[in-house]
């Protein structure tokens, strides 16, 4: 049987307890939270910006990426690649990316695969352009969701990485990625991918591909830094992302993309 006195005592104690925990919440100063968020070096959110109208298809970014990251140069895998698109006057679309564009585009022959080539004459092109691609470092990375062992993850600064010592090489992530950005690294036989050159960006350097690009087609920035020119462009210009309908929230933004790009 509960007496009135006991009831009052416990409910008062409960109210006091609730008040204390509420006080704890209020003690968090919103100003401080904001300050922490705008401390760009400590609280980075990396993002990539690609101006595909500036790309000339020289492939120097792909070369730099593979050499910087020590990937076997001849193996047909690459964390980043450059695609070529040619739309003829007749409306036919040709696209290729031989060797990921590593040696640049030096010939008019479009590689159709299976040893077939197509030469498109300059006068017969309606549109012709290059598109650099890489891992989009999605905010909702499907490749991370499917990993059965927790070997791939998104870092607090928004980079999707692979733990080489823990990956079992099952290849689920390669299947899950809608952008085809992952591959099996023949050195370790584990999943490999673009790391946004994590070893460089965490030292304040640019990624190897951004540094190599002579034309500013590739740029890299920190979305949490309000003074970052790349962040400003992403926030204020007409940027698009690839395969938005998948809901992956890519962090590689494109300027001047054409609807033919898949």
């Amino acid at each position: 049987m509960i007496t009135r006195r006991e009831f009052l005592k416990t409910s008062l104690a409960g109210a006091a307890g609730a008040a204390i925990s509420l006080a704890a919440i209020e003690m968090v100063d919103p100003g401080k939270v904001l300050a922490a968020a705008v401390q760009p070096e400590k609280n980075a959110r990396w993002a990539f910006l690609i101006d595909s109208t500036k790309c000339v298809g020289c492939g120097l970014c792909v070369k730099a990426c593979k050499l910087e990251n020590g990937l076997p140069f001849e193996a047909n895998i690459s964390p980043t690649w450059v695609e070529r698109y040619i739309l003829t006057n007749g409306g036919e679309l040709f696209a290729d990316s031989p060797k990921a564009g590593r040696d640049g585009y030096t010939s008019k022959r479009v590689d159709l695969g299976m040893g077939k080539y197509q030469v498109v004459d300059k006068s017969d092109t309606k549109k012709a352009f290059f598109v650099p691609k890489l891992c989009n470092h999605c905010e909702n990375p499907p490749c991370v969701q499917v990993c059965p062992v927790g070997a791939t993850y998104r870092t607090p600064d928004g980079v999707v990485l692979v733990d080489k010592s823990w990956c079992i090489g099952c290849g689920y992530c390669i299947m899950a990625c809608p952008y085809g950005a992952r591959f099996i690294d023949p050195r370790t036989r584990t999943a490999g991918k673009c790391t946004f050159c994590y070893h460089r960006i965490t030292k304040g350097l640019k990624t190897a591909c951004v540094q190599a690009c002579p034309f500013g087609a590739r740029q890299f920035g920190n979305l949490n830094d309000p003074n970052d020119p790349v962040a400003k462009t992403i926030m204020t210009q007409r940027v698009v992302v690839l395969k938005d309908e998948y809901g992956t929230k890519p962090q590689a933004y494109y300027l001047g993309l054409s609807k033919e790009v898949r």
Partner: protein
Amino acid sequence: MHVLRPLLVVIALVAIVLAIRIFAVPVGFGVYDGGYIYGWYDQSSEEAAKSVEVKYQGREYCQGCHTEQSSKVSSSLHANIQCENCHGPAIKHPSEPPKLTIDTSRDLCLRCHADLPASLSGRSAIKGIDPDNHNPGVNCASCHNPHSPAPGAAK
């Protein structure tokens, strides 16, 4: 007794698995930023990703020693091209490797100068040549200066 014995065996097996887990799973393993779906990993692997060696040093690195080439390139039509794009990553040059490669192949220049259909690309703003007809078989560098190409004519 008939029930208890297999039960003990099962309990022992579970205990063994849990004990092995303690040693096999790295200490850094846990749920971090991003929750269980995106942030379940071994935090020490972030350090592994950071510890990759930096190989491309950037053109500022070359300036002090190769002053002549650096000043030439920076005031030329090729000013935007990093030295290492043509000479390969410096890594720890000049201690290792003592010399960087000098690539005089036509392919290096054709990356940008081969005439291609590229109407909507910056490529159309670069002077293009037809590789099959523009002095085939001769290295570009024997007529053009790679560090300061003269506009329109050979060196």
